[in-house]
C-alpha cells in the first residue's frame, strides 16, 4: 500500500493504513495521539470509555516514535499508533484500578509483560479503559466508574467486561485496545459494538502483570476494527513473561499472526445448534448469512454438533468461581464493603465449592477440550454466533438479559482455543451483531486469516456508529 496524501480523518483509518501514513511522514504520531486524546476527553463525560487518559506520557512516547519514523527506523507496524489498555493491565507509573475501590489509587511499579512488548513495538499507550470490577462484577452502578456506553446507542451498554476498550475502538478514539477474556470478555463487547476482538490460544499472550480473574481461563487479546489489525497487534503481544506461572514457556509459532490466503479446501463446521433456537432472530439470520459468504469464498460448510452450551457454562462457572475466590477472598475478608455488591455476590459462593468439585470441573474441561479437539481434526475452523443477543439496555434497575441466556463464548474459553468475534450485520433496531470463528489450539493464524477473508468480502467492519449516537 502506498500513500502520499495527508489523511483527512486519521482516526477512521486502520492500523495498516496509519502505519503507511506515519512512515511516509504525512501524519505524525504526535498529531495522531493528540487527536486520539482529544476525542477521548471530549467523549468521556457521556461515553465513559476511559478511567485514565495518560496524555503527557502518551505524547512523550509519540514524540519518540516520530524520531524513529523520521530516521526511517520504525520498530513495527504499531510504532506511533495510539493504543488503550483495559484498566486491569498494569502500566508503570499509571494507576491501574480494575474499576474497584480496592485499587482505586493503586499505581504499579512495573509494566505488565504485554505492555512491555507493546512498548518495545513502539505503540503509544494513551489511556486505560473502563471494565467490570476485576473483569467480573458488572455491569454495576456502585463502582468508582459507571459502565461505559455503547457508541451505537446511548441507551445501550457495550457488553463486558472489556467494555471501555470496545467502546473506544467502536467510537474511533483508538484503532487498537487490549481486553481480557475469561468467559467472553473480549468477544461479547466486540460482537455488540461492531468491532473485531480476538481471544488468542490460551497461553500465547502473557498474563503477568494483569489482575487475575480465573487464571486457568484468563486470556488477553486485541480489539480493533479489522482482523488484519488484530493480527498486527497479536504479533507484538505474543510471548511468555519472565515470572509468569500461567503462560506456558513453549515456543510461540513464528508468524503466529500472519494473514494468509485461505487453504483450499477449507472445511468449516457450523455449530448452528448453539444459536439456532436461543439467539435473537436477527443474530441467527446474520450468522446464517455469514456462513453463506464463507461458502461463496470456497469453504465447505457442514453442520456439526458439540456439547450443549450449558455443559461448557457449568464447567467454566465452577472453575472460575473457585479461582476468583482464591484470588480475591483476602479482600472479601479484609474489606468486603470496598467491593461492589455484584462482585461480592459472585465471589462468595466460590468458598462453598469443595476441592473435589473443582477437580471434577477440571476433568470435565479436559473431556470437553478433547471432544472439540477431535472435531477439529476433521474441520479447519468452527463458525457460530459471537453473542446470542444484541447490546443490553443501559438500565441500572433492569434485569440483565445475560442471566437468562446461555453464553456462546464459553466453549472456546473452556477449551482455550483461539476464537475471534467479528461483525456480520445489524439487528432491525440498528445494533451490531457478531459471529465467532474458532480453530484448533495455536491456529490463531488461520482464525485471523479466515476473519480477514470475510472482511475482504463484506463491509460490516467498515460501518461507523452514527455521529449522534457516538456522543
Amino acid at each position, binding site marked *: 500500500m502506498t500513500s502520499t496524501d495527508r489523511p483527512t480523518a486519521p482516526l477512521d483509518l486502520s492500523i495498516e493504513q496509519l502505519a503507511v501514513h506515519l512512515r511516509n511522514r504525512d501524519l505524525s504520531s504526535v498529531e495522531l495521539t493528540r487527536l486520539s486524546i482529544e476525542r477521548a476527553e471530549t467523549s468521556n463525560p457521556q461515553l465513559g470509555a476511559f478511567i485514565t487518559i495518560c496524555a503527557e506520557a502518551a505524547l512523550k512516547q509519540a514524540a519518540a516514535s516520530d524520531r524513529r519514523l523520521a530516521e526511517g527506523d520504525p520498530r513495527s507496524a504499531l510504532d506511533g499508533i495510539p493504543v488503550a489498555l483495559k484498566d486491569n493491565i498494569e502500566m508503570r507509573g499509571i494507576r491501574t484500578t480494575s474499576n474497584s475501590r480496592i485499587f482505586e489509587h493503586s499505581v504499579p511499579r512495573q509494566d505488565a509483560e504485554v505492555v512491555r512488548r507493546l512498548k518495545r513495538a513502539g505503540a503509544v499507550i494513551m489511556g486505560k479503559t473502563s471494565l467490570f470490577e476485576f473483569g467480573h462484577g458488572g455491569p454495576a452502578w456502585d463502582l468508582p466508574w459507571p459502565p461505559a456506553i455503547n457508541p451505537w446507542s446511548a441507551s445501550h451498554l457495550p457488553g463486558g467486561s472489556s467494555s471501555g476498550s470496545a467502546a473506544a475502538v467502536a467510537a474511533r478514539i483508538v484503532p487498537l485496545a487490549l481486553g481480557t477474556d475469561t468467559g467472553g470478555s473480549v468477544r461479547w463487547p466486540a460482537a455488540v459494538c461492531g468491532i473485531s476482538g480476538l481471544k488468542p490460544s490460551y497461553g500465547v499472550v502473557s498474563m503477568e502483570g494483569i489482575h487475575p480473574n480465573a487464571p486457568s481461563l484468563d486470556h488477553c487479546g486485541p480489539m480493533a476494527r479489522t482482523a488484519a489489525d488484530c493480527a498486527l497487534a497479536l504479533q507484538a503481544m505474543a510471548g511468555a513473561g519472565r515470572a509468569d506461572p500461567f503462560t506456558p514457556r513453549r515456543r510461540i509459532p513464528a508468524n503466529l499472526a500472519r494473514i494468509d490466503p485461505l487453504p483450499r479446501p477449507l472445511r468449516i463446521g457450523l455449530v448452528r445448534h448453539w444459536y439456532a433456537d436461543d439467539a435473537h432472530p436477527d443474530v441467527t439470520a446474520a450468522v446464517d448469512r455469514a456462513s453463506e459468504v464463507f461458502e461463496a469464498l470456497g469453504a465447505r460448510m457442514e453442520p456439526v454438533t458439540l456439547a450443549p452450551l450449558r455443559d461448557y457454562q457449568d464447567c467454566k462457572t465452577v472453575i472460575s468461581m473457585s479461582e476468583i475466590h482464591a484470588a480475591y477472598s483476602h479482600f472479601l475478608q479484609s474489606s468486603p464493603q470496598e467491593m461492589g455488591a455484584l462482585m461480592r*455476590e459472585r465471589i462468595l459462593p466460590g468458598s*462453598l465449592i469443595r476441592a473435589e468439585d473443582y477437580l471434577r470441573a477440571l476433568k470435565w474441561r479436559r473431556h470437553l477440550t478433547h471432544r472439540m479437539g477431535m472435531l477439529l481434526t476433521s474441520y479447519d475452523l468452527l463458525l457460530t454466533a459471537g453473542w446470542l443477543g444484541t447490546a443490553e439496555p443501559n438500565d441500572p434497575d433492569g434485569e440483565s438479559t445475560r442471566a437468562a441466556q446461555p453464553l456462546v463464548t464459553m466453549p472456546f474459553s473452556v477449551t482455550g482455543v483461539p476464537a475471534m468475534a467479528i461483525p456480520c450485520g445489524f439487528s432491525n433496531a440498528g445494533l451490531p451483531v457478531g459471529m465467532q470463528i474458532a480453530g484448533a489450539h495455536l491456529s490463531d493464524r488461520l482464525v485471523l486469516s479466515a476473519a480477514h477473508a470475510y472482511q475482504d468480502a463484506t463491509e460490516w467492519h467498515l460501518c461507523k456508529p452514527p455521529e449522534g449516537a457516538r456522543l
Partner: protein
Amino acid sequence: MKMPRKTPDFHAFLAMESLSLPEEQVREMESGYPALIRLLERLRAKTEDIEKPRPREAS
C-alpha cells in the same frame, strides 16, 4: 481457609469468615445458594461416566 466439609452451609460460612455484610446482601446471596447446589449436582452427574474407577486386580 476453614470450610464446612460435607454440606456447605451458607450461614455457617458467613459466621466462620466473620463477614459483616448488609442484611439485604446476605439475603440475595442466600437466594443464589440453591442454584449453586444445582450446578454442582449437574457437574457430578455429568462427570460420573468419566470418573469410573480404573479396573483393578483383586489383592
